[in-house]
């Protein structure tokens, strides 16, 4: 299973209660996402609205649709979960075998509920494939057939259904309109509300991936699904955020460059049914970032399946896109240098920065909210003291505000802000701790490191402790590092700045930054080793 949070969800979690009540346990699919509880809660609410709450279809009918769809997609995880669920609901193994072998479930209710169940299947199958979750039960035999797809256009009613309902308020408030896809579900306000909840929890947060990155993932997933509706919608939303439509079209066509390339390559692969977690790990994506990339792809699949099933007309003019193909995947995976005049991602803060510059001072609060965690982490890394860091954080934001006119957009605003925070922190450190200098220019490169801890580590060290325990362990040991090593580790391994940006922020040459980073990492390794070595392992010779 991918490591996205083995910690148990909070005992008071509503999601836990929903899953326990309806499955009798918490499936691994959701436990694997426990590092982002907001996501699990939103998924539980949507599962509840689509599958568990009473509608004109029975739960068995809806779960049967999900099983048939999962089997059609060859998704072992979801098929196993659905099989076991239906077995417990009293469905015979003979009937279950029929469902997994392509026999469509007999339903006689509005097609909306049928489409929702199929869309839910699409969602959980994509999540399970992306997260590489081991099945909770032995999977049933699945046919070696192509993925089943909902027949397009089987439902075209209620397109104008009561968009004034409270369930639509979210879309009006955040988008300024209610997309046709949600208007078409007016008969199921609880579902629309749960969908809005998932969109808010997943796409409108900034603590893992940025909103822009997630919208790009949605765009790419729609392109790989060849879904005109979704492509037009996400292109328009990206355009409103400042990205030219031509850039959206190029990305949708598979012509991707820039720092988000690994993320979007991953989304493209997952949309085509392949999960390549290693590639994101190699590019230093964190667990929550990977989890959000998977969940955003799954959400796009959910909405696309629903749109195809309902036959909803696009809200905007369809984009003239050359659909990406398998050839694009191989092109995407090749390490091809691109000309520098290719797409450079638009700074997601630029619009807000310009608003502040134009006199809307209140907009600066948005920048504080978006970046305070980053600034705080940087300052704790430099000062080694949370109270000092809080104080210096105020100074940093005030300086940023005062010098906003000097921000020229050559780097992203967030990088510029971290540089200000770094300078603020370094200045304080020099004033308060003259003995703990960051400026020592000693013969760092000549220092010889001799590892003392040479026992092999356990294969999956993160499984040994809860996330809270790991965090405490890391924080206490990072704090013990000398300041010059600590800040290098914080900027590179916690802030995930590039080597170049971290060196620039600290005013260091790149080789010096690299040396300090290595020393910090190796010192941390020594300190952490007693907690993660294999029990009874031999000392390496």
């Amino acid at each position, binding site marked *: 299973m991918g*490591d996205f949070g083995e910690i148990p969800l909070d005992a008071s979690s509503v999601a836990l209660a929903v899953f326990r009540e309806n499955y009798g346990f918490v499936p691994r699919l959701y436990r694997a996402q426990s590092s982002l509880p907001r996501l699990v809660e939103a998924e539980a609410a949507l599962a509840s609205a689509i599958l568990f709450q009473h509608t004109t279809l029975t739960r068995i009918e809806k779960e049967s649709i999900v099983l048939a769809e999962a089997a059609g997609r060859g998704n072992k995880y979801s098929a196993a979960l659905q099989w076991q669920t239906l077995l417990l609901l009293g469905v015979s193994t003979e009937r279950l075998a029929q469902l997994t072998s392509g026999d469509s479930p007999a339903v006689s209710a509005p097609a909306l509920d049928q489409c929702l169940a199929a869309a839910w299947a699409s969602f959980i199958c994509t999540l399970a494939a992306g997260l590489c979750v081991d099945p909770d039960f032995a999977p049933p035999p699945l046919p070696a057939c192509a993925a089943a797809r909902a027949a397009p256009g089987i439902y075209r009613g209620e397109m104008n259904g009561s968009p004034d309902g409270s369930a639509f308020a979210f879309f009006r408030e955040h988008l300024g309109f209610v997309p046709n896809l949600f208007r078409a579900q007016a008969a199921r306000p609880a579902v629309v509300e749960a969908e809005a909840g998932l969109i808010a929890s997943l796409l409108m947060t900034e603590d893992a991936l940025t909103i822009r990155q997630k919208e790009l993932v949605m765009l790419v997933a729609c392109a790989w699904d060849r879904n005109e509706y979704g492509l037009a919608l996400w292109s328009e939303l990206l355009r409103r955020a400042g990205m030219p439509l031509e850039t959206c079209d190029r990305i949708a066509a598979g012509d991707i460059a820039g720092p988000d390339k690994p993320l979007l390559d991953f989304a493209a692969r997952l949309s085509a049914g392949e999960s390549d977690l290693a590639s994101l*790990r*190699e590019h*230093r994506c*964190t*667990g*929550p970032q990977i989890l959000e990339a998977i969940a955003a792809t799954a959400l796009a699949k959910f909405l696309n399946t629903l749109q195809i099933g309902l036959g909803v007309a696009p809200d905007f003019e369809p984009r003239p896109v050359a659909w990406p193909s398998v050839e694009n995947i191989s092109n995407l995976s090749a390490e091809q240098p691109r000309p520098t005049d290719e797409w450079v991602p638009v700074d997601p803060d630029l619009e807000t920065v310009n608003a502040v510059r134009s006199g809307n*001072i209140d907009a*600066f*609060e948005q920048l*504080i*909210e978006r970046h*305070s*965690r980053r600034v*705080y*982490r940087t300052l*704790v*890394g430099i000062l080694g003291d*949370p109270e000092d860091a*809080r104080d210096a*954080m*105020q100074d940093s*934001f*005030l300086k940023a*505000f005062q010098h906003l006119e000097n921000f020229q957009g050559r780097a992203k605003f967030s990088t510029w802000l971290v540089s200000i925070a770094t300078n603020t922190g370094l200045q304080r450190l020099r004033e308060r701790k003259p003995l703990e200098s960051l400026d020592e220019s000693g013969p760092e490169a000549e220092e*010889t490191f*001799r*590892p003392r*801890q*040479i*026992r*092999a*580590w356990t294969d999956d*060290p*993160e499984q040994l402790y809860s*996330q809270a325990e*790991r*965090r405490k*362990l*890391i*924080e206490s040991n*990072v704090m013990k590092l000398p300041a010059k090593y600590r800040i290098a*580790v914080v900027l590179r*391994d*916690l802030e*995930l700045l590039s*080597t170049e940006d971290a060196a620039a922020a600290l005013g260091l040459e790149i080789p010096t930054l*690299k*040396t300090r*980073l*290595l020393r910090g*990492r*190796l010192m*941390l*390794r020594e300190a*952490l*080793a007693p907690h*993660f070595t294999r029990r009874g392992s031999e000392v*390496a*010779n």
Partner: protein
Amino acid sequence: MISCADFMAEIGNYLEGDAAVEVRHQLEQHLAHCVTCQVVVDSSKKTIQIVTDSGSFDLPDPDLKPIASEIMNKIRKEHGKT
């Protein structure tokens, strides 16, 4: 064949994927038979991953609002706003 000391001198670039092809080849030849360096590389990679995934030094939500309000109050005061 390079020594463990040579390997340790290059481990930074190796972990970052920055080692030149020829150097990387030599390092991997050394790794193939040196258990100690294998352990150091493996545990260093795991250290980086654990640190990155730890969510350390995150500012708790309840602490954020008052700090943001205080900063905004100072800014507004400076600009003569209430």
